[in-house]
């Protein structure tokens, strides 16, 4: 799960305080593992150093959280590129797939196109494993099958998600 890129995506909606980012991150992506405040600010500092976000003026008031961060054009480009790239097809990637779908819907991007790109990447990997299975020993075939069944499970999730995109978009918007 890429915390920096996910925060960048959340910042693309509107400039936000670290506190807002943590709240939204936790409610969408960190339900079982909330993001520590320290990590939010450390990440924002790194993104700022790399020119992907810029902190606003310190606003008057109490508490440490008085800077609003905004995404820069370079940051936008970085996020856009990440969003369009398929995740490396390995088992147990649901959280990254999930984050990309939710962010795409949240930001009005084509989640369907992303899911197609991911589906193609998964099927390509399945083709490679099938070829491996056809040409090698039973032990290799057994290992390839383990990968194939997990990729198939991902694909079922991708199909189900693609079929539900309109209602998911509504749920994310509300």
């Amino acid at each position: 799960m890429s915390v920096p890129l996910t925060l960048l995506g959340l910042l693309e909606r509107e400039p936000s305080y670290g506190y807002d980012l943590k709240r939204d991150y936790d409610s969408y992506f960190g339900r079982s593992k909330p993001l520590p405040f320290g990590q939010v600010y450390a990440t924002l500092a790194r993104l700022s150093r790399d020119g992907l976000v810029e902190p606003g003026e310190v606003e008057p008031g109490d508490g440490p959280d008085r800077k609003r961060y905004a995404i820069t054009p370079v940051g936008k480009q970085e996020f856009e590129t990440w969003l369009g790239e398929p995740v490396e097809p390995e088992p147990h990637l649901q959280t990254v797939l999930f984050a990309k779908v939710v962010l795409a819907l949240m930001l009005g991007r084509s989640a369907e196109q992303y899911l197609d790109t991911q589906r193609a990447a998964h099927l390509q990997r399945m083709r490679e494993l099938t070829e491996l299975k056809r040409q090698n020993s039973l032990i290799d075939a057994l290992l390839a099958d383990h990968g194939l069944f997990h990729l198939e499970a991902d694909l079922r999730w991708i199909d189900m998600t693609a079929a539900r995109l309109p209602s998911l978009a509504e749920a994310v918007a509300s």
Partner: protein
Amino acid sequence: MNDKASLVVDRRTDYVIEARDVVFDFGETPALRGANLSVREGEILAVMGPSGSGKSTLLHCLAGILVPKRGEIYFSGRRLDTLSDNERSALRRDTFGFVFQFGQLVPELTAEENVALPLLLGGLRRSEALGRSREWFKRLGIDGLEGRRSGELSGGQAQRVALARGLVADPKVLFADEPTGSLDSLTGELVMELLVTAARQDGTTVVLVTHEPRVAAYAGREVMVRDGRVSSLVPDMHAP
């Protein structure tokens, strides 16, 4: 056989099968809404998509079983959808092979007679047809089952007999509609392995309709049918 003579080349193409803006309705229900597809010679193409998306209807149009309401189907550059019923039957019998989800063997015939059927219908002598049929029993590892009737075959055996029947006439294109749909995973993989090996050895083009990714992974490329239209997940790198 004379029907073949009337097939003229309508357009030059590198593709063995092409669909152009194909529309097909079942009564009031639209099944295909402008489907486009091009299949290269020797290619094994998986046609995927959810139930009811139109993928089987597309296969039936490509194979000349159904005639589209609008649009064009080409086989090796020859217009297929405007042929007469008899011409299309002849083309299916002589040039195409078929495997369906449930073997659909003729129960009154023995397994080897079932396999020989396309050759017999094509006018080949019985002894020669049965001879060629038996070669396929060996090739697909089902020799010994030649004399059985479909009721005496397991699902996997029946499907291998059906595959032999689909390939016996050395078709240019094999149309396979969920060929492993009624089989367990292991038997399904065996059938796919045999299908792909035979097709690659003989250079047979395969159009494989399936909703199962593990079956589609035996193909070289896949397209998705959604709401009666075809979309490629990735651009066709070989397209002219």
